[in-house]
């Protein structure tokens, strides 16, 4: 985890991470919009159908083609993203540790309009929760998707999710939660445009020792890992 001082200062979002982020983002949107068309053939909720204006693929067969195309970039880039986060230390540095106190502090600050956005290199408690949640949801989505795709070839595995219909409902629920994340994530990124810009251009260069910033912003949180 420790970074050698001799290396040039890295940007907040290194190029590899930005590429993976945007491949994941485009894939997830394409999977959601094509998934809606597939869903429409046999809705889970009687009152919920998706108009063709909001779907990718005008027919179910085309929507299925899109869905089974974009599963590849998401799976490949998603796995690479997770490996990168684990190996580079990014997850440990940026997303962990996470405490309930930190989340409550962020919510409290936000309600009192005291939530600072000056330092975008440090994630607040709610950001950490949302990012960790989104990563977990996308992993679950790939796992339930596999159970729906291959309930017979991987029957032992698919049984972990109950029946075929249970896996389908879980896959649908995961989609709904990811949609919720996307709405909040995009809204907040637009609200603090420099975060969006940072995901395009890389953002500020990090000081070799990034720990003090974290310690100042969240004094309650142990920073021993840094």
């Amino acid at each position, binding site marked *: 985890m420790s970074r050698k001082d001799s290396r040039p200062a890295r940007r907040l979002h290194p190029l590899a991470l930005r590429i993976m982020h945007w491949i994941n983002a485009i894939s997830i949107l394409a999977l959601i919009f094509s998934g809606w068309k597939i869903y429409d053939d046999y809705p889970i909720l009687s009152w919920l159908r998706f108009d063709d204006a909001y779907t990718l693929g*005008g*027919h179910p067969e*085309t929507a299925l083609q899109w869905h089974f195309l974009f599963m590849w970039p998401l799976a490949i880039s998603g796995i690479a993203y997770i490996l990168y986060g684990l190996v580079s230390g990014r997850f440990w540095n940026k997303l962990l540790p996470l405490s309930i106190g930190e989340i409550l502090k962020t919510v409290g600050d936000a309600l009192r309009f005291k939530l600072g956005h000056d330092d975008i290199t440090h994630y607040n408690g709610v950001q950490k929760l949302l990012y960790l949640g989104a990563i977990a949801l996308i992993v679950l989505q790939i796992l339930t998707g596999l159970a729906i795709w291959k309930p017979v070839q991987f029957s032992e595995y698919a049984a972990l999710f109950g029946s075929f219909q249970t896996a389908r409902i879980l896959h649908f629920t995961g989609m709904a939660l990811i949609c919720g994340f996307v709405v909040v994530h995009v809204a907040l990124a637009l609200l603090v445009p420099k975060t969006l810009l940072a995901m395009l251009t890389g953002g500020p260069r990090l000081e070799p020792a990034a720990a003090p910033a974290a310690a100042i912003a969240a004094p309650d949180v142990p920073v021993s890992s840094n």
Partner: protein
Amino acid sequence: MTFKRRLSLFRPKTGVDQGAFEANRRLVDDINRRGILRGTLSLGGLVMLTGCEAGHDGAINSALRAVSELNDSVQAALFRPDHLAPTYSADQVLRPPRFNAFYGIDDVEAVDAKDWKLELAGSIATKKAWTLDDIYALPRQEMIIKHICVEGWDYIGQWAGVNLRSFLERVGADTKARYVAFKCADDYTGSIDMATALHPQTLLATHYAGEPLGDPYGFPLRLRTATKLGYKNPKWITAIEVTNVKPGGYWEDRGFNWFGGI
């Protein structure tokens, strides 16, 4: 139920001269493909793919089909020839089975048992046509398996009939060939890979829940394979061909994944 909604587009109004169809198969498929896929990009798709004008649909659809074929190969590699699909108990069986076809149940044309025969073609040593009595005389295998439709619904069905592998061996089919193709009384067509044809849970089904198949469910003969989606199970079969030339199928030619494995 999209299958029904688009019925007027695809349903042949009268019988088609099969000879002419065969002779011009490539052309017919091409016309189908272009005509049907032209409108496949919705507004949502266009918004996402800014820069791709409608005129580029052909390229997009070629790319989508190429990936679909790649997914065929992946599925063939994932296929476990000896792995059995989960089976269920008789009290879970849906009676009657759920109807599905590319038209509504009211439009089913019953097959006359007296006139029906099963013709064989391609890499098969004994091409003698089979009558219904011939088929009924064969040893019967029963399985209670899940039918999963590409649309997302499923039900448990109790199917019995001759094991396709033993049938192919009986008629001297070349089981090293790549595909088994089916033609049906309602002009539906379908095809499966040989590995699936040889799977222990692939039957030429003649019975459901202990009774001969009802008219709407494929009487007298339909395919039931436990390892593929519903549309890969042609009903009202009238001809079987063993071939090395990829045969396609009714829904597959329209863009549904050819392998269709589960």
